[in-house]
Structures are given as structure tokens and as C-alpha cells.
């Protein structure tokens, strides 16, 4: 009576050899049925290994699953649901699993004890990185990482429920049934692909019938309830704050299958029931790691669930009566005083030797050293389990469990089926659920006599996955690593992919014996999420490649793309960097043309990415006075003003212009980069600092398409589009004017006479949906002037020519004084940052000041980031005079121009010094000039 469907055959390969299994098999059960007992090599000694467990507990059977070009390492063969075409390979062996040259390590084991890396590879020091570490990494280790992108899709989802039940064994099923019948919204997360837990493996009767009958009935009823959701193959890996649980659902193990391979769920649960079961413990006796030595529960699982016999002659070695349901030929009960002192058989077990000298021929040794409740998830919120002497196990500490969590079944130490149902009923009553009729079960009470390890000069394995033996633990103690946390890190006990599922408690017991303390005094290490491994791909979900972050496109994007635009990423935005026209050889050709066209006729630039904040209310002006260094309450409606904003520590935060559309209505612009943080800052000021002001804010960055139209022909071009009734002549609409207007026959628009380039310029904004139409209209009407669209490079070149500070200058380290804007700071009013901007170190007369720089030899280029050193000083940091922050080729001046911060720079006009750039090995003699290279008096702005 097994759960595999023998009529349905599935073909698979292991290490290249073809095998057949059945539907319902795991890779492990299919391999064992085919007679494959040797499935892996151990981490350090390369010892031959077979399966120890039959499920999530197995430390030995780690394999790679292969896809077309990639493979996934470190997967437990015992949890891989067999599928047609599965291609699996063993790990950590060379050249083959049967013959592994590094098995020599097993003979060298006296030199490979705990901490041997630290002791052996001390010197020469330089050898660690180049020689020792690479060699050790090749020799020791589990799977290999393939340096290829993961071809699979991963998804994420969010679920809400009244009750999350973790575990689909008898305790979980019973609680789910009670909760479901009581009308609760239930999620049942079961890490196996079959519901039933130990009922699938153990010969148990419920209501005088095989337990599987009860399981089938229960599943049918649960699946019939719409408010109960069963998540198969879903492992809850973490308990987080306020009822949030992380879970990983495996949809398929196949690589490259259509759809999502795994789903990472974030589950919001009002309460939870932990029914995670328990894990059987091995016993540490000499050579207890040979293929064929297994946990008794694993032998039962393979036998009953999968119909696979693990051996022809099975011996049972146990210390508790739970193991007695294992079918065996010979029984060795530690309570009789007999125990195993050695085993033989290199690649498979042949025989065992007992302490009374008896040698028994056996090819399967089923061992049981007791049970460890799976308490891990109870500890993610700082709870520590407590030792229970009677059951010889750690139990959850009910006083400090995560809020709203109840633990039932074997996870709470209920090791018999009667106790499991009792605990589920008790929990149901505690949660006000109708407990229903308790299923009828029988059997003896649980009995155990602790038995941890057999003392010997030979090696007895404790942690099978990291090759830690009881000798390593006693050695660690002798060398002073006696606290559990030190022991763990020194020996690597419990640090492999299974996180010590089978080994931790045995290790603690061996340590406790060595230190003469009790296990309770010794305590456990801290359990942290994730309880089970979660692939990074699942955390990333769909957020990879171009979907790693959102992309924002400007209103002119389509037009620009059609016209040779090269785009640059600016935050989430893709902005036009320049537009390449036929015949242009490199980016400089395009950028120079854009600058020259703009300065000589007219150029258009998409400035929609600038942050736009709509500010309304009676106190808007007063509010702006607080956030800007200069005064805005006196600004007349219909006018704009440049504003500089400080952080409270006095450092410049952002700059931009604000326009006053009416008495109680302003529109602020911010830089592209700071649009979000400025808005957050303004909301902080509004709600937290000045809550009594009548002022309201809303971001309208996305709502307006805004174009800068710059150059001597800017007005003539605009006049072709602006509706007749709006007079935009220089007299009616002077520099720094703003107005609500209409364009193109009635389309609502805003016009601002602002200039970043230094030319006669306007910014025209229309509702976003007209952005594409407007850029096409502007370019068409601009044809007669030879108008061009220009990108961020030309924008940058022109602002440097004009001496405007931008991101390179507002870099989070500069004050208004440094920027040459000290005069902007109003003396009549307070503003955010004003008090601390006056700190001694920030107002030093000889502090950094923004200056312009030109190369003395006009043929030399300037480099950004170069440091200034006085002519005859040594070129070392001690003599640093400041640095170059922005450079550009000026098509207007036919030379490079730069902006930089120079100590006492405002008093050093005309000085010559060196711009020293060791990174590019480029040192240039530069002359200090005004930062306003082009049109210093601003005449072009006002014509």
C-alpha cells in the first residue's frame, strides 16, 4: 500500500545514467528503488554517503538539477518531486561518485580536525588568498554555482487569512478542519507535495481504519471549503513582526518550465498554528555515516509511502519506543545495554559490531536517538526553546512565543498520535473553534532513554552535512570554544544548508557532556530566518533585468526616439542625452550643434522631469519663506523667482524656481534628482514644523509636459503657437514673468519666462497628454528657424557656460556661501537651515567659493574632479585648494570651461594655479575667472 502510482512511469537520469520511477516518487525514493544507495560525497572527507532522512531532514543527498544550460545546486533529492526528464547529478566528487580522488582526505583526517584551516594555513600570509583558499574551496564544498543568469521566472504574492496553519500532518489537518468548519479563513501551508505528514509513513490506525482513509476524507472536506486554501509544497521560512509570515511555494523543480517556478508569499495572518512536526535524531556512534545507515523514520517512509525496501536485512538501533513500528530483522535497544560500536562497508553498509562483541551482517541500519520538535519558527521573535527532561528534547517556550501563535502536535512534543489529536483539540478550544469529534486512536505512551553518542577513538558523525564529528566537538571544548555559539562557529556544526536540522541537539549533548553541564544549561544557538533555503531569484521575483526598477518616459520620448536620440538614465527617467543627426561622428558633434543652434537661433529641451509642486493656501508665501533662504511672500502674482533651499544643518538641499500664479497659489520646481525628497521635506515642514499654516501641497510632476524654448528666436517661435489674445512681447511678458495661457487654439497651458541656458528663454507647460503633440508642433513651427531639440549634455554645457550650479555643485556638502549665493539668504527672516548655516566652519572667509576656470593653454582640456594646487606647492593633499566640479567644452568660447570650488576663490580672480588629476594623469595650469563665462550681465535674458 504505497502512495506511488506504479502505472505511471517517469524517466530520469542520475549522473548521466537512465532510470525509471513512478508518479508520486521523490528523486530519492526512485533512486533507492533502482538500487542506488550511494548518492553523495561528504563535505570535507569525501566519504561515500547515502540518504539519512527521507524528507526535509536529509543532509546527505544533495544534488544538482540540470536544465538546458544551467543547473541548480544543493537540492535535496528527498524533496524533489520526480518529473519526466529530470536530469540530476551528484556533487562534490571528482571524477565520479564511485571513485573520488579527494577521498584521500578521509585518510588524512587526523590533520583535518576542527579549526584546521586556522591552524594550518597561517603562513606565509600572502598564500591564503592565492593558494590555500582557492584549493580549499575546490576540495571542500557542496554544489557549484553556475555563472549564468537564472532562466526561470519567480513570482511574489500577498495573502491574508484569519489563521495560518504551518504543517499538513495530523495536527495541522485536524486544526485546519476545525477552523474551516468554524468559518475561519484558513491557509494551510504544507512543505510536502502530499498532505498527511507522518501518517503517510507510519502504520497508524485512526477510527479503526488505516490513517490514510482519515487523511483522504479530511483533504476532500478541506478542499471543498472556499475559505480554506491549501498551499502544497510551501515552506514557511520566517515569522516576522505583527503577524507577517514568509513562505516559499515550489511550483515545479524543473528548470525552464513555463510559468513561475516558485512563488514567494507574504502572508498576513491574524493568528497561526505551528504544526511543523519533529525531526528524528541520529546517534553518534563510530562510522555511523555509511550508505545504508538511516533514520528509522526514513526507513519507514521509504517502506510505507514509497514501497521501497531500504535493505534485505534491516537492523533497528533505538532509544525510544516510537521506533518500534519500523519493520526490522534485528532490534538493538539501548535500554538493554547493547549499542553499536563500529560499522563496516565502504560504499554500502555490510555489518555492524556491538559493544558485546557481536557482529551482525546488515545492509540497512535504522537508528533513532529520539525526536527534535521543529521549534525554529517559534524562535524568530526572540523566544528560546526550553529543555524537557522527560521527552529529552527542546520544546517551545509557551511564555515567549510569537504573538498569536499556538504550537500543536509533535512540534510541541506530542510524539504519539493520540497526543497529537489531543493537542489539536486543546488548541482549537483555545482559539474558540468547534473542536469536533476527536478521532479514535490507540498506542503506548512515549518512552525514551537519552542516548547520544558512543565514546571511541574512531570518528562518530554529528553533523553529516558539514562533516563534524563528536571528536571535533570535544576538541573545540579543549581549545576553549565551549559556549554553543563559539562551538558552532569553530567547528561549523549546524552551519551547512540544513542548518543542523538533525545535528544540533546531538552536538549540544556531546558538548554538555564534555563541559559537565546539563543540556538545559548549555542552551541552543539562535534560530533565525530563513528556516529553509530560499533562492535569491525568489526574493527578486519579477524585478530583474529591465524590470529591476520602473522606467519613466518623458513626454517627448517618442519624438526623440524617432529622431536619433541617445537616452541617459536619470533616476527612473530616461532623458534625451543628445540627438545624433546623419553625418555626426561622435557625441561632441551633436552636442556642439545643439548648443550653437540654441545660442544662435532656438533650441527646445524637455524639462518635464523637473519636480513640480503645486502649493496653495493663504499662507503659501509665508511657508515658502520658511523653506527657501530668500523671500517669496513679496513676489507679485504673475512673476517667478529663483529659490535656494537648505537642509536644517545649513547645507544646500535643492534649488529651482517658484512662480506665483495668484495670491494663494505658487508652483515650485525642483531638480529632477530631488523631486521626491524635496516633496517629503516640504510635507515634513508643513505637517511637523508649521502645522498652523494654511498651506496645501500636491506633486504635479506627472501632470505637466514642460518644454524649455531657448534662444534669440524663442519668442518668434512661441508667438506662432500661443493664442492671439495672450501678449508675450518683452514689455507685456518680461523676464521672470509667468501666466496661465492657451496655445494651439485653446489648449490650456502655463508659460514661464525662465532661462537656464542664459538665452532668451521660456518654459511652456501643457497637460501631459498634449506633450507629444506639442513637441511635434514646436518642431514643425520651428523649422523656419532651424530649431533643434537638445538633450541633457547641451543643457549641461550651457549651464556651465552660464555659471549655474547644478547637482555637481549642490552635492550635499556646500552652503549658500560656498555657492556664491550668500547674498540670497534673507537677513530679515528665519528659514530652515539658516541658524546652522552660520556655524564658524561654514562661513570662513577663506572657505570654498564657486569660481570659473579656464585652461591657460587654450588647447588643453580640463577634467572633472581635478584638485587645485598652488603653483609652487607640492602636489599632495596637504596643499589642496579645492576641486573642479563641472567641465564642458564651450562652443561659444572655443575652449574648455570649468566650475570649481576654490579656497577664498572670490578673492582670487586672475590667479593661476594647477588643476591636478592623478586619476587620469592630467595636470593643467588654470586661470581663476568669474563663473559667468557667457553674457555675464544677463542682457540676452531680457531682450
Amino acid at each position: 500500500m504505497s502512495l506511488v502510482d506504479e502505472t505511471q512511469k517517469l524517466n530520469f537520469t542520475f549522473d548521466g545514467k537512465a532510470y525509471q520511477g513512478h508518479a508520486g516518487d521523490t528523486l530519492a525514493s526512485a533512486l533507492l528503488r533502482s538500487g542506488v544507495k550511494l548518492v553523495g560525497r561528504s563535505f570535507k572527507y569525501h566519504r561515500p554517503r547515502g540518504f539519512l532522512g527521507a524528507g526535509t531532514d536529509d543532509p546527505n543527498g544533495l544534488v544538482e538539477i540540470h536544465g538546458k544550460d544551467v543547473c541548480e545546486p544543493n537540492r535535496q533529492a528527498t524533496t524533489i518531486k520526480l518529473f519526466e526528464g529530470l536530469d540530476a547529478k551528484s556533487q562534490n566528487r571528482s571524477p565520479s561518485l564511485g571513485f573520488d580522488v579527494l577521498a584521500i582526505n578521509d585518510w588524512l583526517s587526523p590533520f583535518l580536525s576542527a579549526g584546521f584551516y586556522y591552524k594550518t594555513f597561517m603562513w606565509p600570509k600572502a598564500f591564503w588568498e592565492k593558494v590555500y583558499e582557492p584549493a580549499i574551496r575546490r576540495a571542500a564544498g557542496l554544489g557549484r554555482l553556475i555563472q549564468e543568469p537564472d532562466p526561470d521566472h519567480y513570482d511574489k504574492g500577498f495573502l491574508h487569512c484569519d489563521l495560518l496553519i504551518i504543517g499538513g500532518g495530523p495536527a495541522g489537518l485536524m486544526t485546519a478542519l476545525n477552523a474551516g468548519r468554524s468559518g475561519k479563513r484558513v491557509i494551510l501551508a504544507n512543505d510536502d507535495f502530499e498532505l498527511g505528514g507522518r501518517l503517510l509513513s507510519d502504520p497508524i490506525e485512526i477510527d479503526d481504519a488505516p490513517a490514510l482513509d482519515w487523511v483522504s476524507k479530511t483533504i476532500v472536506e478541506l478542499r471543498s471549503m472556499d475559505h480554506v486554501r491549501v498551499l502544497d509544497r510551501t515552506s514557511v521560512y520566517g515569522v516576522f513582526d505583527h503577524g507577517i509570515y514568509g513562505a516559499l511555494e515550489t511550483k515545479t523543480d524543473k528548470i525552464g518550465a513555463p510559468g513561475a517556478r516558485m512563488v514567494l508569499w507574504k502572508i498576513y495572518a491574524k493568528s497561526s498554528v505551528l504544526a511543523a512536526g519533529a525531526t528524528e535524531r541520529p546517534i553518534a556512534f563510530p562510522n555511523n555515516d555509511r550508505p545504508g545507515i538511516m533514520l528509522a523514520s526514513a526507513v519507514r517512509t521509504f517502506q510505507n509511502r514509497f514501497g521501497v525496501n531500504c535493505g534485505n536485512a534491516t537492523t533497528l538501533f533505538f532509544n525510544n519506543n516510537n521506533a518500534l513500528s519500523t519493520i526490522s530483522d534485528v532490534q538493538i535497544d539501548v535500554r538493554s545495554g547493547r549499542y553499536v560500536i563500529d560499522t563496516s562497508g565502504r560504499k554500502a553498509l555490510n555489518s555492524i559490531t556491538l559493544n558485546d562483541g557481536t557482529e551482525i551482517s546488515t545492509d540497512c541500519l535504522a537508528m533513532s536517538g529520539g525526536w527534535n520538535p521543529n521549534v525554529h519558527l517559534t524562535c524568530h521573535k526572540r523566544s528560546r526553546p526550553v529543555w524537557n527532561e522527560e521527552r529529552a528534547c527542546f520544546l517551545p517556550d509557551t511564555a515567549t512565543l510569537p504573538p498569536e501563535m499556538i504550537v500543536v502536535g509533535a512540534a510541541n512534543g506530542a510524539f504519539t498520535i493520540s497526543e497529537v489529536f489531543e493537542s489539536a483539540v486543546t488548541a482549537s478550544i483555545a482559539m474558540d473553534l468547534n473542536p469536533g469529534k476527536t478521532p479514535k486512536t490507540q498506542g503506548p505512551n512515549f518512552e525514551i532513554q537519552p542516548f547520544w553518542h558512543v565514546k571511541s577513538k574512531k570518528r562518530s558523525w554529528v553533523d553529516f552535512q558539514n562533516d563534524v564529528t563528536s571528536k571535533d566537538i570535544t576538541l573545540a571544548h579543549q581549545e576553549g570554544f565551549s559556549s554553543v555559539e563559539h562551538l558552532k562557529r569553530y567547528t561549523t556544526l549546524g552551519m551547512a544548508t540544513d542548518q543542523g536540522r538533525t545535528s544540533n541537539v546531538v552536538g549540544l549533548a556531546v558538548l554538555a557532556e564534555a563541559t559537565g553541564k546539563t543540556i538545559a544549561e548549555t542552551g541552543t544557538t539562535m534560530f533565525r530566518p530563513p528556516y529553509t533555503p530560499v533562492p535569491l531569484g525568489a526574493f527578486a521575483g519579477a524585478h530583474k533585468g529591465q524590470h529591476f526598477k520602473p522606467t519613466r518616459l518623458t513626454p517627448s520620448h517618442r519624438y526623440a526616439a524617432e529622431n536619433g536620440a541617445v537616452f541617459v538614465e536619470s533616476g527612473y527617467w530616461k532623458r534625451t542625452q543628445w540627438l545624433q543627426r546623419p553625418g555626426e561622428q561622435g557625441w561632441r558633434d551633436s552636442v556642439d550643434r545643439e548648443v550653437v543652434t540654441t545660442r544662435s537661433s532656438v533650441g527646445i529641451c524637455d524639462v518635464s522631469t523637473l519636480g513640480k509642486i503645486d502649493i496653495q493656501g493663504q499662507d503659501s508665501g509665508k511657508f515658502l519663506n520658511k523653506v527657501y533662504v530668500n523671500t517669496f511672500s513679496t513676489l507679485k502674482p504673475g512673476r517667478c523667482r529663483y529659490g535656494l533651499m537648505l537642509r536644517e544643518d545649513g547645507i544646500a538641499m535643492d534649488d529651482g524656481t517658484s512662480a506665483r500664479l495668484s495670491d494663494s497659489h505658487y508652483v515650485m520646481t525642483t531638480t529632477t534628482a530631488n523631486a521626491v525628497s524635496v516633496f517629503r521635506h516640504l510635507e515634513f515642514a508643513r505637517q511637523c514644523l508649521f502645522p498652523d499654516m494654511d498651506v496645501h501641497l500636491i506633486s504635479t510632476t506627472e501632470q505637466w509636459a514642460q518644454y524649455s524654448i531657448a534662444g534669440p528666436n524663442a519668442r518668434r517661435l512661441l508667438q506662432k503657437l500661443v493664442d492671439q489674445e495672450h501678449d508675450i512681447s518683452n514689455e507685456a511678458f518680461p523676464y521672470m514673468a509667468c501666466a496661465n495661457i492657451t496655445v494651439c487654439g485653446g489648449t490650456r497651458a502655463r508659460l514661464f519666462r525662465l532661462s537656464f541656458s542664459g538665452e532668451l528663454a521660456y518654459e511652456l507647460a501643457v497637460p501631459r497628454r498634449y506633450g507629444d503633440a506639442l513637441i511635434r508642433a514646436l518642431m514643425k513651427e520651428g523649422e523656419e528657424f532651424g530649431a533643434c531639440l537638445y538633450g541633457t549634455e547641451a543643457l549641461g554645457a550651457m549651464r556651465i557656460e552660464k555659471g549655474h550650479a547644478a547637482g555637481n555643485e549642490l552635492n550635499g556638502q556646500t552652503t549658500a556661501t560656498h555657492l556664491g549665493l550668500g547674498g540670497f539668504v534673507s537677513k530679515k527672516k528665519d528659514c530652515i537651515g539658516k541658524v546652522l548655516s552660520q556655524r564658524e566652519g561654514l562661513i570662513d572667509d577663506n572657505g570654498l567659493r564657486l569660481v570659473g576656470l579656464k585652461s591657460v593653454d587654450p588647447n588643453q582640456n580640463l577634467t572633472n574632479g581635478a584638485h587645485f594646487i598652488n603653483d609652487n606647492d607640492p602636489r599632495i593633499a596637504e596643499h589642496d585648494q579645492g576641486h573642479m566640479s563641472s567641465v564642458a567644452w564651450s562652443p561659444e568660447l572655443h575652449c574648455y570651461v570649468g566650475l570649481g570650488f576654490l579656497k577664498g576663490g572670490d578673492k582670487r580672480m586672475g590667479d593661476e594655479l594647477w588643476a591636478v588629476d592623478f586619476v587620469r594623469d592630467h595636470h593643467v595650469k588654470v586661470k581663476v575667472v568669474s563663473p559667468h563665462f557667457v553674457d555675464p550681465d544677463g542682457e540676452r535674458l531680457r531682450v
Partner: protein
Amino acid sequence: MIIHHPLLGPRDSAEFIYLGDASLMERPDPKAENAQELFYKYLYLRDNPAGEHKELWYHEQGDRSWLILTRNTVTHEITHVELARRSK
């Protein structure tokens, strides 16, 4: 974490931006004689309690309210949430 927004009910903390100690609400008087000293303390000196802490959170992916939470920094238990603008 889940934050019980006074206007919007329970919301995932991922919707919020954390700022820090709610003492940032108490901006000193810029006209005070020792204003620089007061602002220095206001901006740079913070308590770092293991236990109850009043702190500012901004519902950026929501209604843009600034909230004051009383949160236990050890257990993450949130015992009180209020709108910052109502706290003055």
C-alpha cells in the same frame, strides 16, 4: 511590520519612510540667544532607547501623512499612532 494609520487602518510598513526620533517636531526658537547651541542639540543629539521610542514615519506610498509612532525598539510592538500635525 504593520502600522495602524489613524485614517487608513492597518498598512504594511513598506509603504512608509522612516525618519527618526519624534523630537524633530520640536524645532528650537531661531531667535533665542543660544540658537546655534539649541539647533545643534535638536539636529544631532538623539536618545537611543532599548524600549519605547516615539518616532516619525511618512506614508509616502499612501496619503503622505507624517505619523508619530510609539514603538518598542526591542519587540517592535507599536502601542500608539497619531497624526503628527494633530500632536501639537
